[in-house]
């Protein structure tokens, strides 16, 4: 269980998150929605440890992690698929995947077959350089690389941004499969409602650095959510 409570986050003197709280249970997909610039990525940066918070608490599996460095949170099973993917362009696909080994003990350092079941395309491209892949393929690689870490919480930042519709479907199917396995908490940031609605049990809508609407999907009024995402 990930529990974020009353978190503030600043960039210099500018405030990006104000008193934000949310929870993600193992086996659940929690989707963070909102227009651009409302604080979704800042929220993820707070969770994974890419930016320090200025107030509040972040607990993972019962322990306070908000002061732990990013690599220590990665060792505790938190994987991040950043916006823009951050694939290493000069490393091969295989080498990119192997960077996920950093958090594993020596005995665990092998590429699980599961990732090639989820993303068959990667198996045929192991020797290609990351930078030579298409945007959609890079996105699949970034998710696969996160899964190599055997995460118990995976944090995905707009995995569908700028990606062709057929690969968006593939990515949606993979997130649904991970959810069905039930051993992972999934925190997904999306700008688009339809993709989120198909996957999320819980939806959290942000505006101006705060949470303006949150609840189980079935309890939320769809028109209300849509209204807050539009201009």
């Amino acid at each position, binding site marked *: 269980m990930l529990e974020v409570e009353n978190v503030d986050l*600043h*960039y*210099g*003197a*500018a*405030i*990006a998150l104000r008193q934000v709280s949310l929870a993600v249970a193992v086996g659940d997909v929690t989707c963070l929605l909102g*227009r*651009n*610039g*409302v604080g979704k990525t800042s929220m993820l940066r707070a969770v994974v440890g890419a930016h320090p918070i200025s107030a509040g608490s972040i607990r993972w599996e019962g322990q306070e992690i908000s002061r732990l460095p990013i690599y220590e949170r990665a060792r505790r099973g938190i994987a991040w698929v950043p916006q823009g993917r951050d694939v290493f362009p000069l490393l091969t696909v295989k080498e990119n995947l192997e960077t996920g080994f950093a958090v594993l003990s020596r005995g665990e350092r092998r590429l699980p077959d599961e990732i090639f079941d989820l993303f068959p395309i990667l198996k045929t491209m192991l020797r290609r350089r990351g930078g030579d892949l298409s945007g959609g393929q890079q996105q699949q690689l970034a998710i696969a690389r996160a899964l190599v870490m055997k995460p118990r919480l995976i944090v995905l930042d707009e995995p*569908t*941004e*700028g990606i062709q*519709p057929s690969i*968006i479907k593939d990515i949606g199917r993979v997130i649904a499969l991970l959810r069905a396995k039930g051993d992972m908490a999934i925190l997904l940031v999306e*700008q*688009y*409602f*339809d*993709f989120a609605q198909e996957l999320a049990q819980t939806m959290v809508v942000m*505006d*101006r650095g705060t949470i303006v609407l949150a609840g189980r999907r079935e309890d939320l009024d769809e028109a209300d959510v*849509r209204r807050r*995402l*539009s*201009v």
Partner: protein
Amino acid sequence: MTDADTLLYLDGVTVTFDGFRALNALSLVMTKGEMRAVIGPNGAGKTTMMDVITGKTRPDTGKVVFDRDTDLTRLDEPAIAALGIGRKFQKPTVFEPHTVWDNLLLALEGDRGPRFSLFARETAAERRRIEAILETTRLMDHRHKRGADLSHGQKQWLEIGMLLAQEPQLLLVDEPVAGMTDAETEQTAVLLQEINRTRSVVVVEHDMAFVRALGVKVTVLHEGAVLSEGSIDFVSDDPKVIEVYLGR
């Protein structure tokens, strides 16, 4: 040549980066004295549009006509700034070790060479000008504070004040209220309305409550072109706009 009331005219402006079309035959007209809000999803081309107007990026095709007949695409950044187009980037970039007063003094039009730096005192006219800007930007009581000691919102106002010191005809303001408190955001809407009495303004913003408070014509960009244009109520009811924000 454009209509006498036209301040800025982007005519079929296209910009590509590595095959990606950041602006796709973008056309847009602003009249003199207008304030325009520009919104749009990530990658819509908002920043690239500002880059083209200020000469930071040169378009592949298209013209940018300013004040009747000046084609901005033929000028470099300093020349465009000297024409009276000022730009406020998103992050505050005031001189933090200097006082509010000195920041504004440095920004005033005039000789800023070594002689000035060593010997000059501000003139009475310059002092009046700085006083007026302090009043506009709500910084009267903070003139002796160092830039570093201002709140985030006050830094943004100071930087807007530094732009005003250069007497621009057109101000381009990129996400001024990001990171501001609610009260500062409200104040900023009033501040820009006051500035708009004497100057034209383009504001790029994500904060819809703020855009609504400005009460001006809104241009929605999407994939490098104008998707919709009109009052905030008009664009927020436009099915094309709803689709790109809720999308796919």
